[in-house]
């Protein structure tokens, strides 16, 4: 159930955000909107709702005068050339829960939009105020970029301002500069068509993997390879059934945890303290500290592959005599 404009405006008031409110007939384009509020100074915004090949969604909110080149943006986000395109109309309703012509950063207040990444034109910061639709095309509100930040932070989003017109080179030695803005949290199964509404992920507080592992193994000082681990996590998040049923990944994760614990426990001090008993001591420690984690992983693995079998079985309509 999406938020209504009244609910959004009430929330802004609760957050003590100053905004001015302008009613006008329904508008579907920036030009039409400009007819009613263009004379007030400040910055009109144009808002694009985009999608990449892995069914992740983005709102790009820019000053009306800023040139936005989707090909360049796609590269800067690390999606390759041509990785970004306009999102289909149905996802507008399903994910942002706003009508056509009404894309707005404020749509992120809806839970259905929790995995949408937001790119804001840094030009907003220079404006005294900027105009956005508050979830409805027959109203425009103007807010200062600091107040927009306040709102975004209140819904758990980190405001990211970007020079949208920049075109930095992207290559082997120059990683895509906006790659961090691509959220790892979206899950869609490949055979599902555009039913991105069924994404499930518990929280915006997803802790990146390297931290996860460290927290889980307690004091393990793990020297992980962050980029490859993050990429795996992205893949895992995008398709948990296949990722969690993968034998190689399963085995690697267990071996990683064990060797991290091992490395953490073999220190000059512990060698001195235990001498040739160190092996037994560490072996006990591994058993005690890893059992719960490894068991949890193994159970997830089992449940995942059973589910894959269940899906396969229900699709074949296989009836055993």
């Amino acid at each position, binding site marked *: 159930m999406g938020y209504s404009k009244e609910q959004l405006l009430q929330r802004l008031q609760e957050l003590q955000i100053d905004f001015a409110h302008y009613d006008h007939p329904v508008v579907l384009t920036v030009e039409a909107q400009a007819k009613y509020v263009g004379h007030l100074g400040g910055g009109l915004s144009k808002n694009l709702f985009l999608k990449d090949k892995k069914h992740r969604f983005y709102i790009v909110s820019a000053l009306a005068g800023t040139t936005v080149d989707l090909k360049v943006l796609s590269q800067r986000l690390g999606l390759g050339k041509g990785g970004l395109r306009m999102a289909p109309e149905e996802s507008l309703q399903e994910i942002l829960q706003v009508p056509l012509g009404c894309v707005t950063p404020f749509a992120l207040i809806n839970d259905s939009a929790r995995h949408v990444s937001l790119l804001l034109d840094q030009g907003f910061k220079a404006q005294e105020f900027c105009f956005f639709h508050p979830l409805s095309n027959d109203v425009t509100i103007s807010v200062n970029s600091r107040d927009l930040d306040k709102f975004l932070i209140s819904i758990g989003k980190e405001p990211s301002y970007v020079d949208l017109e920049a075109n930095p080179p992207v290559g082997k030695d120059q990683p895509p500069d906006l790659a961090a803005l691509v959220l790892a949290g979206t*899950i869609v*199964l490949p055979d599902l068509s555009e039913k991105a509404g*069924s994404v*499930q*992920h*518990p*929280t915006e*507080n*997803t*802790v990146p993997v390297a931290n*996860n592992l460290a*927290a*889980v193994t*307690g004091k393990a000082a793990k020297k992980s390879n962050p980029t490859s681990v993050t990429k795996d996590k992205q893949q*895992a*998040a995008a398709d*948990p*059934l296949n990722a*969690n049923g993968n034998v190689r990944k399963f085995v690697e994760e267990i071996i990683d945890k064990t060797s991290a614990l091992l490395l953490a426990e073999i220190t000059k001090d512990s060698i001195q303290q235990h001498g040739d008993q160190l092996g037994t001591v560490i072996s006990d420690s591994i058993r005690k500290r890893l059992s*719960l*984690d490894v*068991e*949890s*992983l193994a*159970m*997830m693995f*089992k*449940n*995942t592959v*059973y*589910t894959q079998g*269940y*899906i396969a079985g*229900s699709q074949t309509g296989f009836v055993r005599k």
Partner: protein
Amino acid sequence: MEKNVREEENEPGQIVNPWEVSGKDGGKIDYDKLIDKFGCQRLDQTLIRRVERLTSRPPHVFLRRGVFFAHRDFNEILDAYERGEKFYLYTGRGPSSEALHLGHLVPFMFTKYLQDAFKVPLVIQLTDDEKCMWKNLSVEESQRLARENAKDIIACGFDITKTFIFSDFDYVGGAFYKNMVRVAKCVTFNKVVGIFGFTAEDHIGKISFPPVQAVPSFPSSFPHLFSGKDDLRCLIPCAIDQDPYFRMTRDVAPRIGYQKPSLIESSFFPALQGETGKMSASDPNSAIYVTDSAKDIKNKINKYAFSGGQDSIENHRKYGANLEVDIPIKYLGFFLEDDDELEHIRKEYATGRMLTGEVKKRLIEVLTELVERHRRARAAVTDEMVDAFMAVRPLPGMFD
């Protein structure tokens, strides 16, 4: 044998039923009086040692620490198990909110241990109909919450080859409904008024609900699982406030030719602000949620966990901490596996050698690890997996 307790006869002031739990004058719950009033039994050391022997593994931390402290006929389950007779587990959740906190996980963590230790199947009931009626949710919303809660339940580590999860809205009908009617015929209106405190102003949905929670205790309610096994015993791990449903069930069972289910019951999980505080879904600081980040956990424990320590370091070193009311110690009792370490902390804290801050620090570590593990498992649960857990399907390996 079974005491039938009218709510008014409860310890004046102490109220314990499925919809309300409060101590006398807003104070602590008196569990001894509760066991006495309800007529169930204490889970003593002999039983715990017996469990250890029969399962060839250390008893679960909740048994060792007395979290699960009461039972009805648990010894009969163990007798039967020793003879080679199996049983199945039945537990459930009323999906009233999306956010689950650690207290919600306690019965599921224990049930998972029972499933692993005894190698028996499990049915989990999601009473979406109950919440629809009591919390006035729409049917669709309660169904949605049921599925969301199912994901956190699955993340506790249940084995899909031995676990059937069902929601009342999906499953009630067929053999299940037949048993509901059999049970309903044996319980008069006066009886449910006495047990649950219903009044003439309550709508008929509420009054006819109790059989729904009763019949999963009978194997014939699940023909796709237990067909031909009408004598299979049932063990129900639950919080002690659910006891009224099963007192009613145990009363009815012999009259319709069924085995009485056995129960193993837990005490209540204390709120962060203390035993007398109420854990409430509307106060995020009254509990640690499974969605809390490491930062949230640290913040909540440091700021809101009620401390039994003295108000100054000098006084603390002199008098020590009051372990009776200290929440971090209680929480460690639930979640710190190592008995020796817990004993050490308790001793040091009680004598004032250890400070509240140190106890809280250890608790934060323990809880963060727990919540992280849960979150990792939760991330792996997809809608398809929920469908698979909830599919009406046979479980061929259920006793393996």
